[in-house]
């Protein structure tokens, strides 16, 4: 047989620009599961992550919800941690210095009960150094005051996002709640408020009942559903929002494989974030990255831009 000279194939390029943040990989860690990253750094390789979004930070420490905070569900889990966090000061003094050299880009999720609390956190982090972007959490379903209330009303969304926008030059992601009638209206309000990218989706509000105790299973009664069970819902919302806004989308919700990640990108996401899947398999980012490269090689795709929104 004659020698066939193979076309020299370029290594697929995974680098992307997510609203001004240049990421070496389109795979991020979603806010929450990894906490502030320290514990997982000893366990897994962070290289496959383009970025890490650290757990929500508020102006003052929040103690979180009473236990039980977790329950496994069919192909997913419910959580009602309630945004327990050490507060801005301790985060900046203890956690941030350890995170600066972690490798992946660092995005800090910020939370509050009033617009002033959000802007207070944002303006301090803006000057902190070593932070590549902020993600405004207007969507946590697990606290009674604030949080999701901002994310279910377009005017409140606009108000919070534009207020934070005035306080920081850092790239601004806005994380949306799926617990709304029409997510595209909220996404447009976030874009108009000055967001550089949209993160979606946060968890779906749900609950379970303990039939022996005859009471809600979670200490907070309601919790957020995550995991593979919500993946098709998340994908549909990414699809909807991608048709409504010009800014890039960070897609998340039950992503558990390279196939899942590719579906989000083809629906219009620029990048994807992993959450519950990291509990199932702490090495998930690595295997998704390998799967992405394999798919791109096989289909002669050089950059992810070639397939972003291609299914639309």
């Amino acid at each position, binding site marked *: 047989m004659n020698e066939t000279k193979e076309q020299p194939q370029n290594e697929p390029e995974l680098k992307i620009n997510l609203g001004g943040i240049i990421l070496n990989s389109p795979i991020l860690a979603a806010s929450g599961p990894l*906490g502030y990253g320290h*514990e997982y750094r000893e366990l897994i390789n962070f290289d496959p992550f383009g970025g890490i979004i650290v757990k929500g930070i508020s102006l003052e420490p929040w103690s979180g919800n009473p*236990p039980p905070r977790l329950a496994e569900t069919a192909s997913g889990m419910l959580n009602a941690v309630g945004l327990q966090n050490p507060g801005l000061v301790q985060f900046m003094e203890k956690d941030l210095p350890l995170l600066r050299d972690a490798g992946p880009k660092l995005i800090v999720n910020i939370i509050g009960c009033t617009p002033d609390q959000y802007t207070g956190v944002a303006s301090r982090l803006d000057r902190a150094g070593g932070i590549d972007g902020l993600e405004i959490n207007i969507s946590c379903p697990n606290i009674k005051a604030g949080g999701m209330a901002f994310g279910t009303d377009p005017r409140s969304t606009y108000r919070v996002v534009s207020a934070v926008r005035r306080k920081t030059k850092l790239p601004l992601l806005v994380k949306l709640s799926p617990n709304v009638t029409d997510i595209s209206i909220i996404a447009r309000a976030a874009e108009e408020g000055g967001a550089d990218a949209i993160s979606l989706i946060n968890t779906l509000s749900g609950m379970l009942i303990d039939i022996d105790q005859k009471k809600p299973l979670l200490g907070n009664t309601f919790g957020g559903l995550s995991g593979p069970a919500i993946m098709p819902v998340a994908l549909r919302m990414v699809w909807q929002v991608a048709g409504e806004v010009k800014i890039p989308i960070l897609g998340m919700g039950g992503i558990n494989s390279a196939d899942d990640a590719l579906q989000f990108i083809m629906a219009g996401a620029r990048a994807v974030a992993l959450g519950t899947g990291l509990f*199932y398999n702490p090495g998930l980012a690595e295997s998704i990255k390998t799967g992405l490269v394999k798919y791109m090689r096989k289909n002669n795709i050089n950059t992810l831009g070639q397939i972003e929104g291609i299914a639309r």
Partner: protein
Amino acid sequence: MRVTLYAPDIAREAYPGQFVHIFMPPEHRDHMLPRPFSIFGTNRHTGELAVLFEIVGRGTALLAGTDPGSSWRLLGPLGRGFPVLQPGSLLVAGGMGIAPLAFLAASTTIPRTLIYGARTADQLVCPRENLELPGLTVYEVTDDGSRGEKGTAVDLFSRLVEGAGAVFACGPRPMLAAVRSISNRAGIEAWISVEERMACGIGACLGCVVPADGGYKQVCRDGPVFRAGEVIIDE
């Protein structure tokens, strides 16, 4: 059920009261969380580690049904375990709470006492040979009297607590609450191992907490063994 795993690195380091996170097999790994198990015992020479459990859900059913020789991914040893036993220690195990306490009982030969209670004889699942240890006195107790004394572990504990060196307990929450308050009244130091649903197992996700003064403690990292006064256990 007792399952023995070959995990030399974990077996070498683990001490009583710590736990391992067992990840689900590949065909289930994409939709099931890892499960935390107390370490029941280790053998540093053979590199073996044992867990003792009852089938309560999908994860334990999978582990119970596994074929000998199959591979499971483990993370551990995790958490903060019991302190070293001192002479005259009183160990209190309710039901599956025996798992970490059998490991603790086997860690020494100094005189120590174990109260091992359950509702019925068939719920005293710990193999007898694991509790036949030099220096260990064992009192069995069942609600229906089908094995050992008739009554509860707490009844027996109230009677034996006087003069105990220290107390080490693991079992259902009401039992832990009673052990905590009785030890406190008797002025005896008590250590309790707390169970809670977990996700990450390493202190990152803040999913497993127990109330404490001024907030919450993380069961997976601050515990699962706590000084009884450190945490609040509702009666």
